[in-house]
């Protein structure tokens, strides 16, 4: 292994010096660093390095001066000197030649290039053996006089390195140019993309059904889309550059003064806000009701605001109409309730006498009645009770309608209730010689949870209808079974009769209150037409359904399904009230 070769670095920038030192140490050289020409010469009193690398611009003594000193010193002149510099100007190249430097390397080179150059210089010192030149070369350049003492080899080497540097810089320039050209292409593509995206955004903005505008931090309108033009009646040209307050009515206009400044100062969300309803002023002076959303954003370093407005005049009008209609409906409903309560009271007072006196006469409180008298009093009592049940039906129906009907769910055995319902109409059926039968597809102990009284009411209404519309000698059959629908268990009860039947076109009206079917029925069959409507309401209160099948002239089947377990029933206490509205 060769003894370590010494390199002297003369460099005033500690960072540059250190970078160079580290790179050369890694290559196996022994390094000494001097901070300027004076220090470099002082080091050279004792040190004979293989190579000197020197910066040009240095305090106290620059690289040219130091180089000249070295080349004028017989003991040092054979040590190759590399100037680290950028020689752009011909004058600098000449000064480099004058100084007698052997070569120069531009500082812009990368470290690998510098290292390879230095290696070549160190490994081929002979190439730089300076032939003494008796005559110096004298010449003029741009009016200045120069005197170059360098040997020919040295001068050529120096000029070649200058040329190399120029070529290298040219190559670098070409590379940079290629990069630039690439960048330019990319930029062009970006611009096309941007333009497309801008077109897209503009279309979105212009076709938006909400009015959208932007305002700068002074409240000046900056943009105004088509929908905004439509809402306010101004064209974009008319408002852009004007203060946003021209679109405002009092008191917003007054409140607006200074509010942007306050917002920017305090960052309080005074202006931006969501879903506020305000009124806006149109070009023709009319006022438009708006839903407004304001957002702030930074555009560059400027704060901007976007306003999105929606014309809610129609919505407001409709809301007001709706409110009015609901108020009217409430008033009407209240009037109806009051009327029904009053009617109930007024009808019950005479009924009290009719029913009460009939009862005490039948009880023979005041002596025996003969058969005919007994029969007639009984008729009065029956009619009185019928009238009372009609009053109760009307009240019940109105309660269902107004949502005041309450369900009192409890467990009861179905068969018991069905039997007792049949019993209520039995007398009437017997009179018309109607055969009544019950056929259940579930056990006699099957129980359900529902409102027992209302269940009875439903059955009573269906059975009384069946008896009413079935001619003498007909038959009524009650059928019951369990069914499953949508994962829930129901009971289905059907009342079949051999009555007059219903025309299919009349079926939809069946369950409407006060709509007993037209003549001939209404003449032949008495009733308010409330029964089926009430039955339907009561079934639906139980979350069940009513249905009807009928063949005109042959008979009808009225039926209903109700859940085996009343929905929401938590079990437990009997008589628990669940209110449905």
């Amino acid at each position, binding site marked *: 292994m060769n003894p370590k070769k010494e390199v002297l670095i003369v460099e005033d920038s500690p960072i540059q010096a250190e970078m160079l030192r580290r790179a050369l140490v890694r290559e196996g050289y022994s390094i000494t660093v001097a901070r300027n020409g004076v220090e470099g010469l002082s080091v050279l009193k004792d040190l004979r390095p293989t190579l000197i690398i020197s910066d040009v611009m240095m305090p106290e003594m620059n690289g040219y001066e130091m180089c000249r000193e070295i080349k004028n010193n017989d003991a040092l002149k054979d040590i190759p000197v590399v100037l680290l510099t950028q020689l752009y100007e011909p004058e600098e190249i000449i000064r480099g030649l004058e100084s007698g430097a052997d070569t120069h390397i531009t500082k812009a080179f990368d470290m690998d290039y510098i290292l390879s150059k230095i290696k070549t210089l160190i490994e081929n010192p002979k190439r730089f053996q300076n032939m003494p030149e008796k005559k110096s070369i004298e010449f003029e350049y741009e009016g200045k006089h120069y005197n170059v003492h360098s040997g020919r080899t040295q001068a050529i080497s120096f000029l070649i390195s200058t040329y190399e540097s120029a070529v290298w810089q040219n190559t670098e320039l070409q590379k940079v140019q290629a990069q630039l050209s690439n960048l330019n292409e990319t930029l062009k593509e970006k611009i096309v993309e941007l333009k497309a995206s801008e077109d897209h955004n503009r279309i979105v903005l212009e076709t938006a059904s909400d009015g959208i505008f932007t305002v700068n931090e002074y409240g000046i309108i900056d943009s105004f889309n088509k929908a905004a033009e439509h809402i306010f009646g101004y064209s974009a040209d008319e408002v852009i550059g004007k203060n946003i307050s021209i679109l405002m009515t009092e008191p917003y206009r007054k409140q607006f003064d200074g509010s942007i400044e306050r917002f920017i100062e305090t960052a309080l969300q005074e202006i931006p806000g969501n879903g506020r309803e305000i009124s806006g002023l149109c070009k023709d002076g009319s006022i438009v009701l708006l839903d407004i959303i304001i957002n702030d954003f930074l555009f560059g370093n400027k704060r901007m605001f976007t306003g999105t407005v929606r014309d809610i005049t129609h919505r407001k009008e409709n809301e007001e109409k709706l409110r009015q209609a609901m108020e009217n409906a409430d008033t009407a409903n209240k009037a109806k309730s009051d009327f029904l*309560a009053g009617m*109930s*009271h*007024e009808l*019950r*007072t*005479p*009924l*009290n*006498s*009719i*029913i*009460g*006196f009939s*009862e*005490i006469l039948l*009880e023979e*409180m*005041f002596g025996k009645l003969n058969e005919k008298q007994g029969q007639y009093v009984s008729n009065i009592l029956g009619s*009185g009770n019928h009238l*009372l049940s009609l009053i109760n039906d009307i*009240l019940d129906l109105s*309660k269902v309608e107004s949502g*005041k009907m*309450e369900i009192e769910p409890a467990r009861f055995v179905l068969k018991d209730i069905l039997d007792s319902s049949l019993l209520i109409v039995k007398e009437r059926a017997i009179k018309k010689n109607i055969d009544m039968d019950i056929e259940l597809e579930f056990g006699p102990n099957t129980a359900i949870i529902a409102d027992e009284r209302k269940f009875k009411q439903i059955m009573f209404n269906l059975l009384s209808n069946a008896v009413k519309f079935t001619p003498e000698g007909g038959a009524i059959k009650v059928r019951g079974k369990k069914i499953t629908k949508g994962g829930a268990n129901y009971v289905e009860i059907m009342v079949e009769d051999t009555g007059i039947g219903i025309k299919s076109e009349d079926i939809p009206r069946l369950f409407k209150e006060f709509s007993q079917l037209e003549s001939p029925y209404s003449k032949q069959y008495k009733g308010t037409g409330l029964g089926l409507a009430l039955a339907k309401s009561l079934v639906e209160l139980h979350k069940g359904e009513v249905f009807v099948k009928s063949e005109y002239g042959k008979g009808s089947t009225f039926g209903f399904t109700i859940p085996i377990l009343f929905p929401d029933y938590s079990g437990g206490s009997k008589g628990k009230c669940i209110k449905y509205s």
Partner: protein
Amino acid sequence: MYKILIAEDDDMNKLLLRDILTYHGYSVIEASDGEECLKLAKSIKPDLIFMDIQMPKIDGMTVLRMLKDDSLTKDVIIIAATAFAMKGDRERMLSAGFDDYISKPIDTKQIPVLIRKYLGANQE
């Protein structure tokens, strides 16, 4: 013999109650409006009152309050007999201070049962 006051402005209904009560052996006093009811209740001190609610001069609710506030009459059993028979009416009457409530049309057979509940068997 227990004394029972009927406060009722409808003649027919008053007659019905009187017949029932007389039939069951009670002594009956009649008032046709609230004012008369108040006067008779204080002067005669009945054992029980059947009181209508909607009455001329003073309504049944007010009469009830006046009687229950008066130490002379506060222990008299007062039963509302009214055609106010909508849901909630019963609760409204009982919470107003009536001892019991029957709705019209009344159940004639229930009347003697109800009286015995409060007064026990009739005294001869």
